C-alpha cells in the first residue's frame, strides 16, 4: 500500500477500523490479467504516467481519436445481422434503419464464410442458419436492394471468402449505379485471428496474407473511403482472452498487416489510415474502458517505427461489440442489464461504432423484439443519458488512468514475446497465442464452475421455473431455395466465359497479379462464391488447423478437490470394472467453428480421468461416426452452436447404427433451443447440456448414463 503523507495514512487507519481486523492488503485483488487492483487510487498513482493529461484528437490519442468526440457526433449504431435468405435479411435491415440504426453490418452464413456454395455436400446443416447465404452477386443485389450504397456505410464480416464477397459487393454497387470510389464501410479481412479463434479460414496463412495485401492494395487505389482491414480482438475475447491478451494479440496482428502491406510495396500513409479495429467489451467495467485507451496508446506508439507523415496513420479507430459470452440462457432478461453496462463501457472508452447484443444471445439469432431492445439500449444511452455531453469524461480518473498504464505495461510484455518469435504470423504457427487464450478460457470456466466468478441466474440466484421464450428458427427450406437459385444462375450465364475467368483466377493465384481485380471480373460474369474459392484452392490448398490440447489447466484452477477427487475416483472405478477408462469423442460437425466449449469440455474431461478423443473440426456426420467406431469410444459428445443440430445429430446417429455403433452413447452440448430438446431425445440423444452447464456435473451425468446402459 502506498504510504505518502499524513492524508493517506489517515485513510488507511479509517479503513482498517472499518475492516475490523482483516488486513488492508487483503482488499487488493488480482485480475485474470494478472493486474493487482487496489481498493483506492490517488493522485500519486498518476505521477510519471507519460500519457495523462494529453488532449483528445492528438497523438497518442488515449483520450479519443477525435477532438470533439460524441459532443459533435455520437458513435455509429451498427448492429451485426443476417440470417435465412438475402431477401429476409434485406427486409430486416430496412426495418432497422427505419428504427434508428445508422450503419449496416452483414453476418454471412458459415458456408459462405468457408467458400462453399449452398449446394456443397459438406454444408447440408449450415445454409442460412447462422447468417445470410450469398452464393452469387444475385444474392448480394437482393441483400442491398433499396439501400443506396453510396450513402450507407456497410461493414462486412468476411475473412475466408473475402475475395468473392468483396467483389460481389463491389459489383452489386456497380449494378446499382454506384462506382467504387464512393463506397464506404469496412471489410473485416483479418485472417490472422481466424487461425486463432474464429475458424472461418479457407487457405493456409501464407496465401491468405497475400489476399489481405491484394485487397489493401486494390482499395487504396480504387476505394479511398473504404476500411480495408478491421483488426479484430473481439473474437479472441469471446474465445477466452482477457483484456491484456486481447490488446496484445490485436495490436500484434495489426503490426503484421502493416508489415505485409509495406512488403507489398505500399506507402504507409496510403493504407494505414484505412485500417480500423474491432474490440470486444465484457463485464469488467473499468478494465474494458482502460483497455480501449491502452490500445490507442500502444498503436500510436508502435506505428511510429514506420515513420508515417500523416498522423491519421497513428490513430486507432475502432468498432466495438458487447460480449455475447457474458450473456446467459438462464434468466435471459438479465442480459439486457449486462449489455447496458457493456455498452456504457464501450462508450466511455471512446468507440467509433458499436453493436449491442440481444437478450436471447445464448438461445438463437435475435428475434424482432430482442433486436429492438438491443438497438434501443444504445439509443437510450445516446439520447437520454447525457453521457455524450463531455469528451472522455473519465480522463484524469486515478483508477482508470492507472489501469490504462497497467494494461499498456502487461500488453507490451506479450508484444515483445511475439516480436521474439518473429511477429504474429510466426507466433500463430508456434501455437503460443492460441494456447494462451485456451488456458485463459479453461481457467475462467473452472472459476465459474466453482462459483468463484458470479454469474447471476447461472451459479447464483437461479430461477426455478423459467418461462419459455420466443425463438427465431431458420427453416430448412432455405437451403432448397438457395440450391434452386444456384441452378438457375448457372443455366442463365455464359458458362464458357465463366470457365475462362476462373482459369484466370487460378493462374493469378499461381503466378501473381491482383486477385481482387480478377475476382471482380469473375463476379461480373456470375461466377459463384464457391467456384471462385475453388479456383484458388487449386493452387493454395485448404488449411487444416493443428489442434493443440492443453491439459491440467482446468484441474489446477480447481481448488475444490473434493469434487475433482470424487470424479477421478469414479473414472478409476469405471476402469477397474470395464478394463479401460471411459472414452469420449468430442466432435464438431458441419461448418460450425465455435470450439471454445468443445475445447474446455475436452480438457476438463481428461482432467477428470476420461480418455478423450478430439475430432478435426468441420466433420460430416459420417466422418465423425467413423472416428467413433475406429477409436471404439463409449460416448460421442457433440458440441453444436450454429443451429445445425437438427440435421447433423440424427445423421450421426444413423451413420453410427449403420456401422454397428448402436450402443455408443450420444450427448449433445451447446446452443440447443429448449424447444428442440424432445426432438433430439426422440432420435436417441441421451443427454443435452446447454450453456452454463457445470462441467463436473456434465461428467457425472455422462458416467451415470454409462452405468445405466
Amino acid at each position: 500500500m502506498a504510504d505518502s503523507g499524513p492524508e493517506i495514512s489517515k485513510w488507511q487507519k479509517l479503513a482498517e477500523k472499518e475492516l475490523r481486523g482483516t488486513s488492508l492488503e487483503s482488499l487488493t485483488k488480482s485480475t485474470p490479467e494478472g493486474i493487482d487492483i487496489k481498493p483506492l487510487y490517488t493522485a500519486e498513482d498518476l505521477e510519471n504516467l507519460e500519457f495523462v493529461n494529453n488532449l483528445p484528437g492528438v497523438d497518442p490519442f488515449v483520450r479519443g481519436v477525435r477532438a470533439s468526440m460524441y459532443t459533435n457526433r455520437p458513435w455509429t449504431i451498427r448492429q451485426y445481422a443476417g440470417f435465412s435468405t438475402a431477401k429476409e435479411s434485406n427486409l430486416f435491415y430496412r426495418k432497422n434503419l427505419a428504427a434508428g440504426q445508422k450503419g449496416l453490418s452483414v453476418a454471412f452464413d458459415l458456408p459462405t464464410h468457408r467458400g462453399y456454395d449452398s449446394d456443397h455436400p459438406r454444408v447440408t446443416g449450415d445454409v442460412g442458419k447462422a447468417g445470410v447465404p450469398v452464393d452469387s452477386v444475385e444474392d448480394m443485389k437482393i441483400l442491398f436492394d433499396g439501400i443506396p450504397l453510396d450513402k450507407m456505410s456497410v461493414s462486412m464480416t468476411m475473412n475466408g471468402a473475402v475475395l468473392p464477397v468483396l467483389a460481389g459487393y463491389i459489383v452489386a454497387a456497380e449494378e446499382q449505379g454506384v462506382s467504387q470510389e464512393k463506397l464506404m464501410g469496412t471489410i473485416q479481412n483479418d485472417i490472422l485471428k481466424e487461425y486463432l479463434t474464429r475458424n472461418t479460414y479457407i487457405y493456409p496463412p501464407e496465401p491468405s496474407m497475400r489476399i489481405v495485401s491484394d485487397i489493401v492494395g486494390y482499395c487504396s487505389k480504387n476505394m479511398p473511403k473504404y476500411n480495408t482491414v478491421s483488426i479484430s480482438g473481439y473474437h479472441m475475447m469471446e474465445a477466452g482472452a482477457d483484456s491484456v491478451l486481447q490488446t496484445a494479440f490485436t495490436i500484434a496482428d495489426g503490426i503484421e498487416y502493416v508489415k505485409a502491406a509495406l512488403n507489398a510495396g505500399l506507402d504507409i500513409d496510403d493504407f494505414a489510415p484505412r485500417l480500423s479495429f474491432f474490440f470486444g467489451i465484457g463485464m469488467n467495467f473499468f478494465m474494458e474502458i482502460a483497455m480501449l485507451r491502452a490500445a490507442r496508446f500502444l498503436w500510436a506508439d508502435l506505428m511510429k517505427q514506420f515513420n508515417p507523415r500523416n498522423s491519421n496513420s497513428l490513430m486507432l479507430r475502432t468498432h466495438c461489440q458487447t460480449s455475447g459470452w457474458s450473456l446467459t440462457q438462464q434468466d435471459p432478461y438479465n442480459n439486457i442489464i449486462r449489455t447496458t453496462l457493456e455498452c456504457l463501457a464501450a462508450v466511455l472508452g471512446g468507440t467509433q461504432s458499436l453493436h449491442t447484443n440481444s437478450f436471447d444471445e445464448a438461445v438463437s439469432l435475435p428475434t424482432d423484439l430482442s433486436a429492438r431492445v438491443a438497438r434501443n439500449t444504445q439509443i437510450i444511452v445516446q439520447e437520454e443519458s447525457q453521457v455524450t455531453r463531455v469528451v472522455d469524461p473519465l480522463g484524469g480518473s486515478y483508477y482508470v488512468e492507472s489501469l490504462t498504464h497497467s494494461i499498456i505495461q502487461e500488453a507490451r510484455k506479450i508484444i515483445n514475446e511475439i516480436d521474439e518469435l518473429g511477429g504474429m504470423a510466426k507466433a500463430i504457427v508456434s501455437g503460443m497465442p492460441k494456447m494462451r487464450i485456451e488456458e485463459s478460457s479453461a481457467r475462467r470456466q473452472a472459476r465459474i464452475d466453482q462459483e468463484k466468478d458470479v454469474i447471476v441466474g447461472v451459479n447464483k440466484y437461479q430461477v426455478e421455473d423459467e418461462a419459455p421464450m420466443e425463438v427465431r428458427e431458420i427453416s430448412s427450406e432455405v437451403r432448397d431455395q438457395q440450391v434452386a437459385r444456384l441452378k438457375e444462375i448457372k443455366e442463365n450465364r455464359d458458362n464458357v466465359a465463366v470457365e475462362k475467368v476462373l482459369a484466370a483466377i487460378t493462374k493469378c493465384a499461381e503466378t501473381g497479379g491482383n486477385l481482387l481485380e480478377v475476382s471482380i471480373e469473375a463476379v461480373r460474369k456470375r461466377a459463384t462464391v464457391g467456384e471462385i474459392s475453388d479456383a484458388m484452392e487449386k493452387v493454395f490448398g485448404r488449411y487444416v488447423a493443428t489442434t493443440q490440447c492443453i491439459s491440467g489447466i482446468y484441474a489446477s484452477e480447481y481448488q475444490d478437490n473434493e469434487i475433482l477427487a470424487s470424479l477421478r475416483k469414479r473414472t478409476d472405478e469405471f476402469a477397474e470394472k470395464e478394463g479401460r477408462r471411459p472414452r469420449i469423442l468430442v466432435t464438431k460437425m458441419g461448418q460450425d467453428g465455435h470450439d471454445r466449449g468443445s475445447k474446455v469440455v475436452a480438457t476438463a474431461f481428461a482432467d477428470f480421468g476420461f480418455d478423450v478423443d478430439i475430432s478435426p473440426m468441420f466433420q460430416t456426420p459420417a466422418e465423425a461416426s467413423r472416428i467413433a467406431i475406429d477409436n471404439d469410444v463409449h460416448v460421442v459428445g457433440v458440441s453444436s452452436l450454429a443451429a445445425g443440430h437438427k440435421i447433423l445429430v440424427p445423421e450421426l446417429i444413423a451413420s453410427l447404427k449403420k456401422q454397428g455403433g448402436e450402443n455408443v452413447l450420444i450427448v449433445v452440448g451447446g446452443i440447443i433451443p429448449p424447444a428442440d430438446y424432445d426432438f433430439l431425445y426422440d432420435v436417441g440423444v441421451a443427454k443435452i447440456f446447454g450453456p452454463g452447464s457445470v462441467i463436473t456435473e456434465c461428467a457425472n451425468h455422462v458416467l451415470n448414463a454409462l452405468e445405466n446402459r
Partner: protein
Amino acid sequence: METDPEYYVSGVCAGNRKILAKTITLVESSLPKHQELITGVLNRLLPFTGKAVRLGITGVPGVGKNTFVESLGMLLVERGQRVAILAVDPSSTHSGGSIMGDKTRMEKLSAQPNAFIRPSPSGGTLGGVSRKTRESLLVCEAAGFDVVMVETVGVGQSEVSVASIADFFLLLMLAGAGDGLQGIKRGILELADAVAVNKADGDNLAKTLQAKNIYADAMHLFSSDNTNWSPPILTCSALHMIGIAEVWETVLDHHEKMSATGALEQKRKKQAIQWMLTLLEEGLKDWFYQIPEVKKLLPQLTWEIERGESTPTAAVRKILTSLNN
C-alpha cells in the same frame, strides 16, 4: 461385450472395422477375463500375421510425427495400399486420463476407407505400451493391412519398445539451433534404421541441410551391428509432402535387402524371443510380489533399512533364502 472368440477372429479376418476396433479394445483391456479371451483370439489370428511392413516412428513432441504419418499414409493409400496406424498418446499421471488429438492432424488419412487409425492412451494397462501395441499390430496384420505404423512420442522408454516391435525404426528429428543431438539419447540413435530431419521447408530449409550433415557425422560414431545396412540420414517436409516418397523407398529398400538375406526373419524371431523374455520377466515380477512370504517380509525389511539395522544386500539375501526353504 461379445465373448465368443470366433466373433473376433472372423470379424478381423473379414476386415470388419468395428470388430477390428473392438479387438484392439480387448488387447488394451486390463480385465483378466478380457485378457484370457484375447489370448485365445490372438492364437487363432497368428497364422494370418506377419505379412505387413512394420514401421516404427518416434521423435520429440512437435517434431511432426502425426503430420508425417498423414503424408506417408496418404501416399501409400493413393498407391492402393491398406495402412493401419497405432498412435500412442501419453496419459496424465495426475488424472490417469488423456487427450488424444491425433486425428486432428491426420484429417485426410482418417477419412480414407483404406486407412485405420487407432490412438491409444499409454497409461494404466498391464504390460505397458509394448504389450498393447505389439498385439494390436498383430491384429492389424491379420486384418490384412499392408503397412502398420506405430507412432510414439520420443521420451522415455516407449521408443525402445517400438524398436523391439518394428521391422524398420524411423527417428524423426529437427534441425536444432546448432546443437548436436538435442536430448535424443545415444541409445536411440543406435536403434534407428534411418533418421529423417523433418520440416525441411521455408526458412528452415538451410538449417535442415546443415543438420543433416552434423547428424551424419554423429551417426558414423555408432557402428551398427547390422553389416548390410548403414542407417541413412534423410530430410523431408511432412507438411509439404516433400521427401516422403524417398523415406518410403528407404524403408522398402531395407525390407527387400533384409528379406533377401533372411535377416528380416531373423530380426522378427529375435524380437519374438526378446518379447518372450520380457513377458517372462514381467510375469515373474508379478508372481514374485504376490508371494505371501514376500508380502510379509518386504515391509519389515524396508523398515529395518530405514533404521539402519540392515543393509540392502543382507535384506535381499534374506528374502531370497526364505523362498528356498
